[in-house]
């Protein structure tokens, strides 16, 4: 062993020029390899970002143009054809629903734009959390035609009257987005439960649990990224812009809170929790 080391050291001393070249060559080679790896990583990331961006543009275009196409079709129909009173009422209802959908998409895109401005200050009013959660629940029940069993609500006594400081419209949008997702990603049999709980004395939590298609473990964090949608046939059946959860996360973080998702995997449902700091 000692002999081997002595021979090696001796060789290095005798051939220091070659060794220096060898070391330089190795460093150069490593630099090239690291450069290649970094370049490939950035390239792949850029491609994915472009794909997500494309998918977003497709989805938003569809979400904007489809209700417009529908409204236009009904208007042309009413203008050019004889339509009985019953059909006429139905057409008006469809147009109203389409204009609601259009407005929702526009607001969602504008809200996502605002959410991207990290320094933008939020309004600072005191908000009664149970009140706006119940309000969002009622809206969701009406919008999707659900009863109290399909969309249930439990309020812990400790959380009753919990107040947070912030922007009521933004928080309402965040809660509504979670409820909309829970319904959208449920099976035909919708079963969504909403729970309002206190975490100690300083925080309040809103949990929205569904028994829908679930989320693979690896995707639980990524789903909050802008434009991100879980790939696969399951998700492809549900239309969306990839903005909803991004808005939820941005709003919650601006209010000093956090949001996270839990799921046992595909087909096992999922639970989203928003935690917000209470004010007295």
């Amino acid at each position, binding site marked *: 062993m000692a002999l081997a080391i002595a021979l090696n050291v001796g060789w290095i001393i005798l051939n220091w020029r070659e060794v220096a070249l060898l070391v330089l060559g190795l460093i150069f080679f490593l630099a090239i390899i690291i450069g290649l790896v970094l370049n490939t990583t950035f390239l792949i990331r850029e491609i994915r970002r472009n794909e997500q961006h494309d998918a977003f543009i497709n989805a938003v275009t*569809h979400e904007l*143009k*489809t209700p*417009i196409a529908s409204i236009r079709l009904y208007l*042309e129909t009413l203008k050019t054809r004889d339509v009985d009173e019953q059909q006429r009422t139905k057409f008006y209802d*469809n147009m109203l629903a389409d204009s609601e959908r259009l407005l929702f998409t526009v607001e969602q895109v504008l809200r996502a734009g605002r959410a991207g401005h990290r320094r933008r200050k939020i309004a600072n009013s005191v908000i009664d959390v149970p009140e706006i959660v119940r309000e969002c629940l009622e809206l969701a029940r009406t919008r999707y035609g659900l009863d109290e069993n399909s969309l249930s609500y439990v309020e812990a006594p400790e959380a009753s009257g919990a107040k947070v400081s912030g922007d009521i419209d933004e928080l309402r949008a965040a809660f509504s987005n979670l409820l909309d997702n829970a319904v959208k990603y449920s099976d035909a049999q919708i079963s969504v439960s909403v729970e309002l709980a206190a975490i100690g004395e300083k925080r309040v939590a809103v949990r929205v649990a569904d028994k829908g298609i679930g989320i693979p473990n690896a995707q639980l964090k990524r789903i909050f990224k802008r434009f991100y949608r879980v790939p696969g046939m399951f998700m492809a*059946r549900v239309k969306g812009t990839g903005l909803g959860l991004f808005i939820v996360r941005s709003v919650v973080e601006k209010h000093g809170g956090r949001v996270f998702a839990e799921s046992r995997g595909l087909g096992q449902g999922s639970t989203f929790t928003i935690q917000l700091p209470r004010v007295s």
Partner: protein
Amino acid sequence: MTKNAVLIVEDEKHLADGLRFNLEAERFSVDIAVDAETAEDLLLKQRKPYDVVVVDVMLPGKNGFSLASTLRAAGQFVPILMLTARGEAQDVLRGFAAGADDYLPKPFELAVLIARLKALLRRREWLRTVQAGGKTRQPITAEGKDEPKLIEFDGKTIDFEALELRSGNHTVRLTVMEADLLRYLIRHDGRIVSRRSILEDVWGLREDTDTRAIDNFIVRLRKYIEDEPSQPRHLVTVRGVGYKFISNAKGQRGKSEELRAKS
């Protein structure tokens, strides 16, 4: 008078209901499929005899492009009108490449939709008449003169009315768009045609677009007309410009001997 049967493949209920109301008012019989799988079941398994299919591109699960490709691959050549939210040239060409016969960007005018459906039905009716051995009126080209029904070159026969390309015992069905492109190239036999002029003259697309989208069509046409598609002799690429159709691939004999038109 029998009603023309139309299948609407559209998952947006309001749009589908509105279309049904209007098409029924135009004396069509209408079925609605809410996704591509249902449409495939109706068209391929149950073999329902629809006269025309209206397909939305953005369907849940399998999209409209895939549906059109599947139908064509399975030998189902019912005319397809595609509804696209994104009406950019690339999307339209993607639809044509998948086997669609016409497209309409959303939001569309009702009168235009109905006119285009009727045009597709007329074309189908001509085709049926031809296949039944009946006589049809000669189609008039955009240039205002009679276009030959049959073109022969290099042992291949293109029947523009039956939308067929025959080579020996082998027959290939052409989509309307493939036939239109082939006709355009043949009309400019021996001359270079740019990708831009193909876009404008064949498909009427005048937007700025990635003109390489045409390449998919060219690849497919080469498979039909070339003995070795990787070594094209008839449909050659002119680098940086476009394509050139050469009926006389050997370059020895006169064009009139090689390319025979029959009307």
